[in-house]
C-alpha cells in the first residue's frame, strides 16, 4: 500500500516537474515602445521608434521585428507588410533600448513589435493614429530638457517637443518629419558622432536649425556646436536697445538686453548693432542655420511682446524641404525597366546570346556532316550511328554545363540609374532608380550607401514570392533590404541621397547670351555632356576633373528658331537627344519626361546642362557573388529663363 502511494506520489511529482519545467526555463520579455518625439511624428515621414526590451528571465538571443504596412491608398497600390529587423542578445534580468526608424504608409493597421527566440515569444501592437501630426514637428534641445519660456503663437499648428540631447536620433531619416531643431543653452559635447552626422545630413537635405543665444556663452565655443554656428562666439554684452529683429512694426522696443558677442565666420548678417551680429543666417546644402545672439530664455526678451513674432519669423517652414523620391520628373516603372532589359545591347549581359548562336551553328554543322557521311558511306553504319548518338549527347551535356555554370550568365543583375541635381554649396540631390532582377530563386540583401533618405520599394505590392521584404537596420542610418526573388523575377526601388558633388555650373543671362561657367572639382570626369539653350543643343563632350572654363551661348529668338527648323523649346530639343549607348537613351528620356508622350518637362523653357559621370560608383550594391552590376549617373542642372525670352 505504502509502495503504491509512494509510486503515485512519484508520478505526480514527475508530472508536476514536467509541467513546471518549461515555465521555469522560459524567460519573460516585456516590450515598451516609444513612438516619435515624445509621442509625436509627422504623417507621411519616417519617424524614430524606440523599443525597450525588458528581460525578466534568463539570457536570451532572439530577433526583434517591427512590422509596418506599406502601400495602400496613399501610394496607389496594394498593401504589403514590411518588417524592420534586428538580432539582439539580452542578458539575464536586463533591459535594452533599440532605435528604429520606421516609415509606414498605412496607419489604419497597427504597427506590430515582436521579439522571437527559441524559448520566448513576445509581441505588442500599436495604433499609430494616436500619435501623428499632419505638420512637421519642432524640436527644442535645451540643457536638462528645461524648456525656456518659448511658446509658439496660438495659430501655430506645429507641435513643439522638448528633447534632451541623448534623445536626438542618430539616423537622419528620423528627422525628416522635423521642420526645425532649436538649440538653447545646450552643450553639444555629448553629441555622438552618429547624432552629429544625422543632424548634418538632415540639414543638407533641407532641415532648419535655429541656435538661440544664451548667457552661458562658453557652451557656444565648443567645437561641435562651432561646426554648425555661422559665427565664432567671443562673449556677452548688455546692449541698451535691441533693434527690430522682425518686419513687424507694432512691437515695442526692448532695452538692456544681454546678447552674445561674436565674429561672423560664414553666412549673412541680417541684423547687427554696434558691430555685434544679432541675427545671422547661413545655408548648408538645402538647409539653413540661423543664429540669434540675444538670450531669449531670460528676461527681458522672454517677457517681450515681440518674442512670438520673432519666433514666427525664425520658424518659417522651408518650402518642400523633403519631397519624397518620385515626386520629380524621374520616371521609373516596369515599362522603363522592360525597355532597358529587352534592349539588344543589354540582352547579352544576362543571356549568352553569342555563345548560344555559336553552339547552334556548331551543332547543326556537326549534324550536317553526319548526314553527309551517312549518305556517302553506307557501309559504316555501325560506326556512324553510335558516333552520332555520342555527338548529340556530348553537345547536350557540354552545352548544359557551359550555359548553366559558364556562359557569363549571372545569378542576378543590379541596375542603378542616378540623377544628380545641384542643390547648393557643392551638394547634390541624388535620385537613384534601382532594378534588381534574378535569374534564379534566391534571397538578396540590397545595401545602400550610408545616408540615404528615402528608400521606396516599387512593385512590391504584388509579391511573387511568399517571403515578405525585410529591412535590417542597425540604428545609425545604415540599412539592408532583404528580399526573396523567384527565377526571372525583378523588383524596382527608388532611393534618394543628398551628397557632396562639387561640380559648379552657373548660368548668367546677359541680354542675348547665356554665360555658362563650369568648375569641376569632383574626382570624376563627365562624358557626353551638353547644354541646351533656347531649344538648341550644344555638345560639350568630355569635361575632365579639374576643368574650369566659361562659354557664351546665344539666345536665338523663337521666331528665328522656327524659321531655321530648330526646336522651339528646350523640351523639344531634349526629345531629340540620343547617345551611342542605347541604355543611356532610355534612362535619359525617362529621367526628363514623365511619360513617353509627354510634351512638357520640368525644363521646358530652361537652360539645361547635363553630362554622364564616367566610372561612377553605385550607391547600392549586393554582397552576393555572381551579380552583374551596372550604374549610370547623370548630372544635370538648369536655369529658368526670363519669361520674355521667347516672346
Amino acid at each position, binding site marked *: 500500500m505504502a509502495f503504491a502511494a509512494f509510486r503515485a506520489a512519484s508520478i505526480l511529482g514527475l508530472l508536476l516537474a514536467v509541467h513546471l519545467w518549461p515555465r521555469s526555463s522560459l524567460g519573460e520579455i516585456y516590450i515598451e515602445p516609444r513612438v516619435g518625439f515624445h509621442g509625436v511624428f509627422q504623417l507621411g515621414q519616417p519617424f524614430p521608434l524606440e523599443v525597450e526590451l525588458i528581460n525578466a528571465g534568463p539570457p536570451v538571443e532572439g530577433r526583434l521585428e517591427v512590422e509596418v504596412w506599406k502601400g495602400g491608398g496613399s501610394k496607389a497600390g496594394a498593401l504589403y507588410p514590411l518588417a524592420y529587423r534586428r538580432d539582439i542578445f539580452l542578458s539575464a534580468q536586463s533591459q535594452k533600448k533599440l532605435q528604429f526608424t520606421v516609415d509606414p504608409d498605412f496607419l489604419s493597421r497597427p504597427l506590430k513589435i515582436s521579439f522571437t527566440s527559441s524559448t520566448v515569444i513576445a509581441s505588442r501592437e500599436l495604433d499609430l493614429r494616436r500619435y501623428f501630426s499632419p505638420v512637421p514637428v519642432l524640436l527644442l534641445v535645451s540643457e536638462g530638457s528645461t524648456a525656456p519660456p518659448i511658446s509658439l503663437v496660438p495659430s501655430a499648428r506645429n507641435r513643439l517637443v522638448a528633447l534632451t540631447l541623448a534623445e536626438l536620433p542618430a539616423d537622419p531619416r528620423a528627422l525628416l518629419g522635423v521642420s526645425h531643431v532649436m538649440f538653447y543653452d545646450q552643450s553639444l559635447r555629448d553629441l555622438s558622432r552618429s547624432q552629429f552626422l544625422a543632424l548634418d545630413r538632415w540639414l543638407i537635405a533641407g532641415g532648419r536649425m535655429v541656435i538661440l543665444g544664451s548667457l552661458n556663452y562658453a557652451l557656444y565655443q565648443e567645437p561641435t556646436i562651432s561646426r554648425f554656428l555661422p559665427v565664432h562666439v567671443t562673449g556677452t554684452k548688455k546692449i541698451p536697445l535691441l533693434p527690430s529683429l522682425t518686419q513687424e512694426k507694432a512691437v515695442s522696443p526692448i532695452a538692456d538686453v544681454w546678447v552674445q558677442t561674436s565674429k561672423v565666420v560664414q553666412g549673412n548678417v541680417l541684423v547687427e548693432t554696434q558691430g555685434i551680429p544679432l541675427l545671422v543666417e547661413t545655408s548648408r546644402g538645402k538647409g539653413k542655420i540661423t543664429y540669434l545672439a540675444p538670450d531669449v530664455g531670460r528676461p527681458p526678451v522672454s517677457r517681450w511682446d515681440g518674442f512670438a513674432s520673432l519666433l514666427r519669423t525664425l520658424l518659417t517652414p522651408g518650402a518642400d524641404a523633403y519631397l519624397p523620391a518620385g515626386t520629380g520628373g524621374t520616371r521609373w516603372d516596369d515599362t522603363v525597366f522592360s525597355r532597358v532589359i529587352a534592349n539588344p545591347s543589354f540582352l547579352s549581359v544576362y543571356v549568352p546570346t553569342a555563345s548560344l548562336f555559336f553552339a*547552334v551553328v556548331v551543332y547543326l554543322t556537326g549534324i550536317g556532316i553526319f548526314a553527309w557521311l551517312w549518305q556517302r558511306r553506307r557501309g559504316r553504319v555501325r560506326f556512324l550511328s553510335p558516333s552520332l548518338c555520342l555527338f548529340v549527347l556530348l553537345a547536350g551535356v557540354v552545352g548544359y554545363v557551359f550555359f548553366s555554370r559558364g*556562359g557569363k550568365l549571372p545569378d542576378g543583375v543590379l541596375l542603378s540609374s542616378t540623377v544628380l541635381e545641384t542643390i547648393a554649396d557643392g551638394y547634390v540631390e541624388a535620385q537613384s532608380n534601382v532594378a534588381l532582377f534574378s535569374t534564379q530563386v534566391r534571397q538578396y540583401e540590397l545595401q545602400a550607401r550610408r545616408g540615404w533618405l528615402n528608400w521606396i520599394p516599387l512593385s512590391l505590392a504584388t509579391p511573387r514570392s511568399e517571403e515578405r521584404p525585410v529591412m535590417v537596420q542597425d540604428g545609425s542610418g545604415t540599412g539592408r533590404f532583404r528580399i526573396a526573388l523567384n527565377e526571372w523575377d525583378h523588383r524596382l526601388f527608388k532611393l534618394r541621397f543628398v551628397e557632396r558633388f562639387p561640380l559648379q555650373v552657373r548660368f548668367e543671362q546677359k541680354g542675348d547670351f547665356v554665360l555658362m561657367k563650369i568648375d569641376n572639382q569632383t574626382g570624376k570626369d563627365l562624358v557626353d555632356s551638353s547644354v541646351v539653350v533656347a531649344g538648341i543643343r550644344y555638345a560639350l563632350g568630355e569635361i575632365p576633373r579639374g576643368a574650369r572654363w566659361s562659354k557664351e551661348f546665344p539666345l536665338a529668338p523663337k521666331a528665328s528658331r522656327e524659321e531655321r527648323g530648330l526646336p522651339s523649346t528646350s523640351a523639344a530639343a531634349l526629345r531629340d537627344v540620343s547617345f551611342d549607348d542605347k541604355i543611356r537613351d532610355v534612362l535619359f528620356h525617362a529621367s526628363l519626361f514623365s511619360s513617353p508622350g509627354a510634351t512638357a518637362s520640368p525644363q521646358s523653357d530652361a537652360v539645361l546642362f547635363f553630362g554622364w559621370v564616367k566610372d561612377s560608383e553605385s550607391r547600392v550594391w549586393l554582397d552576393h557573388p555572381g551579380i552583374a552590376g551596372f550604374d549610370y549617373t547623370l548630372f544635370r542642372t538648369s536655369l529658368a529663363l526670363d519669361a520674355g525670352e521667347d516672346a
Partner: protein
Amino acid sequence: MTTNAVFRESVEVFYYEGHGLTTYLYLLVIMAPVQLASLYLPSLDAQMWNGAASLFKVCSVTALLLIVYFALRVANQEFAPWRFQPLRGWSHEHGLPLSSVSSAQIAFLSLHIGISLLLCSPFLLWAAAISRTPWVAVANTFLLLPFYALTYGVWGLAALVFWERRMESRQILVRAIVFCLVTISSLVYLPLNPMAYLLAVIGRRELPPFSLGGWQASATSLHFIFHLLLGCGGLIAYRRALRRGLAS
C-alpha cells in the same frame, strides 16, 4: 526487331535511302531559329521582357508540336509512300502474322520518336540551362514528349490501315482529328491540352482541378487518363483495322 521485315523495310526506306531524313532536317531547321529568335527578338509586352526565362517553355512546346506532327506523318507513311509494300502483301506474300506487323510499325514509330527527341535534346538542354529550369521539370519534359508523340502517333498508324489506298483522305483526316482533339480539349478543360499541361509542369504551376456537381478530380489524373484512353483507343482501332485489313 531487326529481323522483322516490316521494320527493316521502314528503316531501309527512311534511313538507308534517306527519304525520312528530311523529317529531321525540318525538325532542326525549325527548332534552331525558334530558340535563337525567342532570345533575340524584342518582347511583345512590357511584362514579357524575360525572353530568356521562357526559353525552355518555348523550345519544349515547339519540340512537342514538331515531334507529334512528324510522328503522325511518319506513322501515316507520308514520306515516300510508294516505297512501302501494301499491308495485305505482308500477310499474304510473306505470311507475317498481325502481331509482327503491328509491333514492327509501333517499334519503328518509337524509333523515329526517339531519334527526334535525341536530335532535339541539345536545344532543350541548352534552353533549360539558360532559363535555369529545374532538373525535375526538364526530366518531366523529356518523359512527356515521347508519351504525347506515341499517344497521337498511334492514330497515324490507325489512319494508315483504315485508309491505306486513300492517301490524301487520311492525311487530311489525321490532321483534322488531332487538331480537333487539341482544340476541343483546350476549350472544354484546359489541363487536357498537352501544351497547357507541359507549360504547367515546366512552370511548376498547379492546374485547376476538374469539378462537376461537387465531384472533383485532379487535373493531372484527368490529363493522363484522357491521354491513356486516347492512346489505347488509337491502338485498339489500329489493331482492329489491321486485323480486318490483313484478313481481307
